[in-house]
């Protein structure tokens, strides 16, 4: 018996959200009195044995070339085979794009109940109950998984990474995957930016910034804080900012430690995408902006007067001139 954690990679490096899943999975394993094991598909440059410090006893690796592109069907088969061979009773994924694409298929293949968007460790006192977000962050559901094998997709930024001692045993396994049916013909990635879903701090701008030429107020602060940048839906719709920055009900859902909203009124659809952020700061000139009700800190004021002063204060704090 074991807890198996899928370690998703980006350009050869294990993603931060997967390391969170590893720590979470290790804790679940401790709860159940079994070992935590990882699975890595494709070639990674990270030292797999060092993943032991996240609580993994063993890391299974298959470096077959075809796994360097994520293919739902092939990944599902490989993970299912390994899960069966290693006697995994709980399989943990990050609730990121790859996790969602693979785990849903795996659920069917293994007849394993799945909970996506988990935000806490399972309650194993009576059955196996996992808390997840529902209604776009407006509520939680406690979902009982009633099957022998359980699949959990952990929301990014919901479980802290803890680093301990330990070295994982690295086990390679052989698979002979069928050719992929999905052929990737082009990849267009934004490089050098902090990925929005994994960012601990997000600085976001809305229509209150009046135009794309004023976005330095967002990007300068983001740079100082090592933050990702985001925007509201209207801003993406009028193409002041790219669509992949749009957070909200119809955009990306995030839960950073700090969400810094500049000139965003906070419509309910926007809040649905950010309301799980641990600390929310709102700068808006309208004291009636609904966002203030959801915020932890706020300044009612003109963003063009307030933001330069905030940026200066952060520079001072960080010792940047």
């Amino acid at each position, binding site marked *: 018996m074991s807890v198996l954690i899928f370690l998703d990679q980006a350009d050869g490096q294990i993603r931060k959200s997967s390391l969170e899943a590893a720590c979470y999975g290790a804790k679940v394993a401790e709860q159940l009195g079994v070992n935590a094991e990882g699975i890595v598909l494709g070639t990674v440059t990270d030292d797999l044995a060092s993943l032991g410090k996240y609580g993994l006893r063993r890391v299974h690796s298959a470096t077959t070339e075809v796994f360097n592109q994520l293919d739902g069907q092939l990944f599902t088969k490989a993970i299912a085979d390994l899960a069966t061979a290693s006697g995994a009773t709980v399989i943990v994924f990050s609730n*990121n794009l790859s996790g969602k694409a693979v785990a849903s298929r795996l*659920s069917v293949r293994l007849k394993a109940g*799945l909970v996506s968007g988990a935000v806490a460790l399972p309650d194993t006192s009576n059955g196996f109950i996992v*808390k997840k977000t529902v209604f776009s962050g407006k509520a939680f559901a406690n979902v009982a998984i009633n099957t022998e094998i359980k699949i959990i997709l952990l929301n990014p930024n919901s479980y802290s990474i803890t680093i301990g001692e330990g070295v994982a045993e690295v086990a390679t396994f052989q698979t002979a995957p069928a050719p992929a049916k999905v052929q990737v*013909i082009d990849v267009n990635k934004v490089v050098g930016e902090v990925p929005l879903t994994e960012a601990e701090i997000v600085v976001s701008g809305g229509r209150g910034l009046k135009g794309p030429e004023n976005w330095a107020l967002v990007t300068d602060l983001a740079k100082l804080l090592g933050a990702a940048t985001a925007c509201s839906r209207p801003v993406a719709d009028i193409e002041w900012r790219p669509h992949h920055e749009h957070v909200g009900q119809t955009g990306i859902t995030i839960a950073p430690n700090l969400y810094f909203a500049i000139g965003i009124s906070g419509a309910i659809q926007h809040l649905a995408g950010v309301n799980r952020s*641990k600390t929310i700061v709102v700068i808006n000139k309208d004291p009636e902006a609904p966002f203030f009700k959801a915020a932890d800190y706020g300044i009612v004021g003109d963003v063009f007067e*307030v933001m330069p002063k905030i940026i200066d204060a952060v520079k001072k*704090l960080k010792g940047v001139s």
Partner: protein
Amino acid sequence: MKILVCISKTPDTTAKIAFTANNTKFVAEGVQWIINPYDEWYALVRAIELKEAGTATIIHLVTVGLPDCDPVIRKALALGGDEAIRVNAESHDSYYIASQIAEVAKQGGYDLIFTGKETIDYNGSSIGGMLAELLDIPYVSLAIKFNMEGNDAIVVREIEGGEETDKVPLPLVVSCQKGMAEQRIPNMKGIMGARSKPLKVVEPIDVTPLTSIASFDLPPAKAGVKLVSADQPEELVRLLHEEAKVI
């Protein structure tokens, strides 16, 4: 080409979320039900566009639910689509729903199945993948563009930090999100026409759900915003550093 579009009903985005019966039941009274926005704006409308362009010949809609879903499915038919199928069952979990839709899909022999990227109530994002596995066909998630090129689908999808273009043979399951199509409003001709379109009701197959909801919780109320004077923005930075400890 035959397309099946999966439709789900969800509470309106502005609906008040509350629970009753010891936090085990969603309070449905007074809730306005809508077509799940991702199913409507992106999946259904793109299917309609493909039919208008002559790429698709037939569009069927499918939903799993009791008769109270009928107004929502009629509304979807008012936008477009040739007929709707309702699997007459309570919805249970994602696996149950995907299994029912897979059965409809097998009967209908569709080339393409569109879903929304998630429902805005359960936020599972799992129906598409489950359906594809049940039918043993490829699944492309989070599509932002979809076109046909010969016998292959060319799909642009979101990946972490960017976009990817895939070429995939049919049959195929695609989950749709923003970018696929522009939102439409049904016109009077559509609304009148929807009344005479067939809405077939089929009985569910026997499937045991894999999960069940034990209870719901509402998030703890926020303590309230701490306002800092606009004359002293540096005070906000101090609070974030020393009190909230987030910077």
